[in-house]
């Protein structure tokens, strides 16, 4: 029982991170039908920004401000920086390709991804950076009740992720901007004709998606410690997978897909074998896709005649 709960916690932590990244993919796809492969690099930059803020504030061992404030600043800086980067990428790499064949922005995104990775290597060198979280928040703090053993950092990460997802849900379903986003993703032309400023909505979508990715980056730095130039590649792939599994274009689907992948990884590594962890997860996902071809919560693709 202990073991099960432990893996559950592991899976949920990992899943929250994947979910946040997947949300960015899903939102952008919903509006532009574009797979933003540079999203992983945005997440990486968010993690680096968090690292630099932490170092600027004295580092994990000796922060000049109280820990809670340091964390808040790291998150804000990471999220804001990532958001601005995302908006910039949209402006210069995707906007000229608005009416191009679907596959062109894909290559542009790949180019941006290479460029950002190489820039990170150039500016930050190849060394691994670490947040040294145990110095900041010792991992002995946390809940230790019976089978449940979670450190404070994980609680923090999971709760912030849930908070962000709720905030997103609120934004999309209860605000005017959210309504505009939904309308644009449904039919861009009609939305434009109804007086919605489509460009602004797209910028807002990219900003929000990138903000979530930046938050995910800082979270990964806190819980898993390693920040380096290549981290965006794998995370981006997993986030993309999660978005599609959940039904691409669907926001609750992305959240669900992320959680599913995180849990699948945790449980297959824990119960079956860590060696074949990836293999098992992929087989599971293929089966899922065959059983449900449009993803878990995806809407069936309508064929317009």
């Amino acid at each position, binding site marked *: 029982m202990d073991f099960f709960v432990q893996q559950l916690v592991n899976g949920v932590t990992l899943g929250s991170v994947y979910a946040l990244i997947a949300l960015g993919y899903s939102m952008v796809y919903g509006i532009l039908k574009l797979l933003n492969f540079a999203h992983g690099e945005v997440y990486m930059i968010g993690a680096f920004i968090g690292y630099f803020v932490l170092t600027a504030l004295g580092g994990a061992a000796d922060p000049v401000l109280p820990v809670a404030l340091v964390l808040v600043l790291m998150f804000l800086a990471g999220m804001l920086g990532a958001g601005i980067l995302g908006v910039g990428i949209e402006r210069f790499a995707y906007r000229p390709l608005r009416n191009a064949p679907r596959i062109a922005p894909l290559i542009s995104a790949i180019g941006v991804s290479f460029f950002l990775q190489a820039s990170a290597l150039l500016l930050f060198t190849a060394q691994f950076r670490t947040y040294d979280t145990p110095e900041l928040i010792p991992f002995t703090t946390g809940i230790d009740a019976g089978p449940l053993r979670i450190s404070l950092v994980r609680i923090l990460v999971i709760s912030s992720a849930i908070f962000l997802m709720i905030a997103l849900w609120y934004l999309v379903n209860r605000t005017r901007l959210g309504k505009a986003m939904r309308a644009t993703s449904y039919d861009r032309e009609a939305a434009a004709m109804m007086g919605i400023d489509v460009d602004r909505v797209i910028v807002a979508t990219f900003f929000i998606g990138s903000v979530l990715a930046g938050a995910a980056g800082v979270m990964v730095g806190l819980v898993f410690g390693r920040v380096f130039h290549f981290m965006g590649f794998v995370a981006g792939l997993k986030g993309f997978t999660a978005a599609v599994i959940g039904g691409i274009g669907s926001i609750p689907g992305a959240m669900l897909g992320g959680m599913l992948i995180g849990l699948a990884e945790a449980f297959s590594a824990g119960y079956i074998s860590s*060696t074949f962890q990836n293999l098992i997860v992929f087989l599971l996902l293929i089966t899922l*896709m065959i059983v449900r*071809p449009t993803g878990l919560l995806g809407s069936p693709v309508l064929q317009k005649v």
Partner: protein
Amino acid sequence: MPRIGTDEWVAEQELRTETYSGLTAPARRAFDRVGPGPRFFAFLAICAIFPFTTDSDFLIRVGVNVLLFALLALGLNIVVGWAGLLDLGYVAFYGFGAYAYAWVSSEQFGIHWPTELAIPAIVAASALLGVFLGLPSRRLVGDYLAITTLFFLQIFVELTLNLDRLTLPGADEPLNLTGGPNGIPGVDPMRIFTIDLLETRDYFYLLLVVFALAVVGLFYLNNSRTGRAWRASNDDPLAAELMTTPVARLKILAFSMGAAMAGLTGTIFAAVQVGVFPQNFEVILLVMVYAALILGGAGSIAGAVLGAIVVAAVPEILRTPENSRYLFYGVLLAVLLTIVRPWKRVAFLAGAVVLFGVVVHEIVAAVWPDGVAAEASAGRLGGVLESWVVLPAENRTTIGNVAFVVLVLAALALTQLRGDARLLFLVPTIYLAAFVWENRLIAQPSVTRQLLFGAILVAMMTTRPHGLLGTPRVENPI
């Protein structure tokens, strides 16, 4: 026999030729007059002579890489360009072909099949595997198909990494199928009809022959009923289905043919590299093949080849600092020529930049002598540049980093300006680019290589989204 869709283009030929103007007009008219056959033959002839123009094994190896990429791009073109299926698992067939060749022609299992038997068998096996992968395409469309095929690729990579310790129930020794992370080194060289292929040059010619056959075959395939059926099902699957085109079967056929081509290329690759390793088939290769295809223009055979040349050759040029320096300034000039017309303005601009540079250099030399103390990297242009670009001796890295960030922002801002403001802003930006290049980028050629390649991809796609030789399509903006 009138070829559908082509006759109109032919009829408009005269009109089009008349509108050619400028320096290149006679060349273009001549080019138009010959058909695709002679053009391709001329291209092949140039390729065939190429290994004799140099005795550098490296260049021939680059040629081999280009041809491998071209074959891969051609195969992918069938799936993505003609049938319109986003197949992200394509490289798995390449890997399968390579590993299969290693299985039947190396010490791994002690089997050494003759090449004439191995290659057709592996191609057939790859085609079969392609059918298997194509089966989900009945139910999955678009991006969902993409992600499923991506899973196949990931599964393939995982299998190659881990199938060296497979303990089957009842067996004593673990089964070693793929050599794990160490791969299968020491693959037999090919031997086709008593000709031993031992040198890189031999494989270059083998690839050239295969390439020629492939292009001819694909050309005829494109103009056949199947080709037209693919295009129809790509444009509008529902309409095609209603016109009795068997869309599902065509999709599987496309997958299968693409897989067969990739498998064939894989076998030759294994022989060239004299071994096969899991690191050869990672997602990055998939990205490069797609880049080659889309840069060149998906759907066009010549486009696939052109894209392959760019994607395989450009990173090799960018390896050495001196060459990439030439390429850098050359491309800078080419970009200037395109965004600033007429060319007299460019000359004026170049002069202004040089003057600006000299002025800045003098000012910095006077105010802060350390700022110009360092030496430029070696090379023929180095001496010239030393008196033009500011080369600080201290803190080169930090200054370079900051300048790099400023340069990126400036370049982006430039795309927003127009007219005279743009010209004016170009001058310091170009100088800044030279500064960043000489101080920071040239010291790290490997990183710069990736940087430039990414920038080239973005620039090429934003300026010409349908690829170099593709036809502009207007997608339905949903």
